[in-house]
């Protein structure tokens, strides 16, 4: 064990250096809590009477909220229209399945590419807009898209949704069943793989410059950082991940309706992320677990007023756990350990 020996400055300095050099290694190392989290999602499948369909939805919402976290949590760009990208992915996967391309994995990648491309363009478009104006622009883009899908009944089926979507068994082996078993595994594996991508990104030098731009754009400019390029890139990645979540929903339910890109969905994903906590990826999943379990439970109690309680929860979280549930838990845990 290396101990910091203050009587020998040279050694002390080296020990300090070793500690600092190890700092970034520590940041990217897998924590025990992370491993347990994913194992719990695997284990949840085997719990008797578990609502697997709800769990699958939690994964999809978690992935969707995580995509927003890259934008809002890590880069500090708020969006009130993130469901636009979710919907693009959902409809892209839906059209493929309806018109003959029924293989799910390539369909998912295609949906991600389309959503990512739209995200790239959106990113270029909004990179000079800030604050409230940005909220308005993202909201407007979402509303325009929603209205287009809603009205183009010949193409999208309008309110009735896109019918006749066919999705082949995953890898030609695992057929999507009505109990949602295949859907759950498919969603879990896709979500986990995309989580790995997002995790690598936020721990990388690019992730660090996202944080830098969130903290101080002016300083980033004065470091010579290409912040416009970075905004386009993170928008594209975030949109692609949101699109993947949308495609997962379509593929696992073999149906897509305009609600996939409604403003309500944009608001819900923001609520999920705020409840869970921003800029830690897992906050998105914790938020999704809380939000969907509460919605499920509250809707059973009162199908009409469930959102009232969600609203109340949000007020409580924002008032008492400012940074969200997960960061508060982390702080509590640290305090307990320090004792």
């Amino acid at each position, binding site marked *: 064990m290396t101990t910091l020996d203050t009587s020998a400055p040279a050694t002390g*300095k080296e020990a*300090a*250096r070793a500690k*600092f*050099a190890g*700092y*970034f*290694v520590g*940041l*990217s190392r897998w924590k025990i809590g992370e491993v347990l989290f994913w194992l719990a999602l695997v284990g949840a499948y085997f719990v008797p009477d578990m609502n697997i369909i709800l769990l699958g939805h939690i994964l999809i919402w978690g992935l969707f909220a995580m995509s927003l976290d890259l934008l809002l949590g890590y880069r500090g760009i708020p969006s009130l229209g993130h469901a636009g990208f979710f919907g693009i992915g959902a409809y892209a996967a839906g059209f493929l399945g309806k018109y003959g391309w029924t293989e799910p994995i390539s369909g998912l990648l295609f949906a991600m590419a389309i959503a990512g491309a739209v995200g790239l363009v959106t990113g270029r478009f909004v990179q000079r807009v800030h604050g409230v104006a940005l909220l308005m622009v993202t909201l407007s883009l979402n509303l325009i898209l929603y209205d287009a899908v809603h009205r183009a009944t010949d193409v999208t089926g309008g309110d009735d949704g896109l019918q006749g979507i066919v999705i082949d068994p995953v890898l030609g082996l695992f057929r999507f069943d009505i109990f949602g078993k295949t859907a759950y595994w498919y969603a879990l594996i896709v979500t986990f793989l995309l989580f790995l991508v997002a995790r*690598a*990104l936020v*721990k*990388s*030098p*690019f*992730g*660090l*410059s996202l*944080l*830098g731009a*969130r*903290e*101080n754009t*002016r*300083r*980033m*400019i*004065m*470091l*010579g*950082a*290409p912040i416009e*390029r*970075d905004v386009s*890139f993170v928008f594209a990645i975030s949109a692609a991940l949101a699109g993947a979540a949308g495609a997962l929903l379509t593929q696992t339910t073999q149906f897509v309706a305009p609600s996939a890109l409604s403003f309500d969905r944009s608001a819900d994903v923001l609520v999920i992320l705020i409840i869970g906590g921003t800029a830690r990826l897992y906050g998105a999943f914790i938020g999704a677990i809380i939000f969907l379990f509460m919605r499920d439970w509250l809707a059973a109690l009162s199908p009409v007023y469930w959102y009232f309680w969600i609203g109340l929860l949000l007020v409580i979280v924002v008032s008492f756990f400012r940074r969200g549930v997960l960061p508060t838990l982390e702080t509590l845990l640290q305090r307990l350990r320090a004792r």
Partner: protein
Amino acid sequence: MNAARDIVLATRNLRMAFGGLAVFDNLNFELGRGERHAIIGPNGAGKTTFVSLVTGLLTPISGDVEFNGAAITRLSPQQRVKAGIARTFQINTLFRGLNPLESMVLALCERDGRSGQAVTSVSREKPQIDEALAMLERFGLQEGALTLTDMLPYGQQRLLEVALALALKPQVLLLDEPAAGLSTQQGHELFSQLVELTAGTTILFIEHDMNLVFRYAEKVSVLAAGSMVVQDTPDNVRNHPRVREVYLGV
């Protein structure tokens, strides 16, 4: 004597206005390589505006900014940074939610073109991490290297402000009131540290405290009423009748 001076940064007939308010009419300025040069002037003379024009955060109405003899007036701020101009701000412009180590590694990754790397962990950027540690040690910031910048004592934040700019290895470093918010004694301490730490770099600084200016600057320019009134050595500037007029009204 001027002919022998190697000019690294210059402005030619720079004109700038905010709406109807003219800041400079015809501003000409030259900075020699290796100089430690101060710009002084009454409040509102446009000192910070001048720095922002040089760094590209503002664009002049007409005139040119030249760097190593070439006009850089149309370059973006980022392009100017890459060309070798770095600056600090009068009000701390730091990454408050990051610690000094992260901030420094970030600056070095930007400098070395590593910031687009989105696949492997920051921990793999060994040269930048090592240099960041050395830089923080040089500035005496290693103690708080893992403390949130926001939690650092103000004096250390001022040092970090300079360290981040200096990490870019600029040819010219512009310091906008580096001692702002510090006590007189802290200001002197900071400046004596800066003289040592920035040795070999051309420095252009703005400072209100005349004791600091006349003690640490090798050359002084006086900005008043939209133009550079005098550019000379501290002693000559001190005794210049126009300066006495501008500052003392005599």
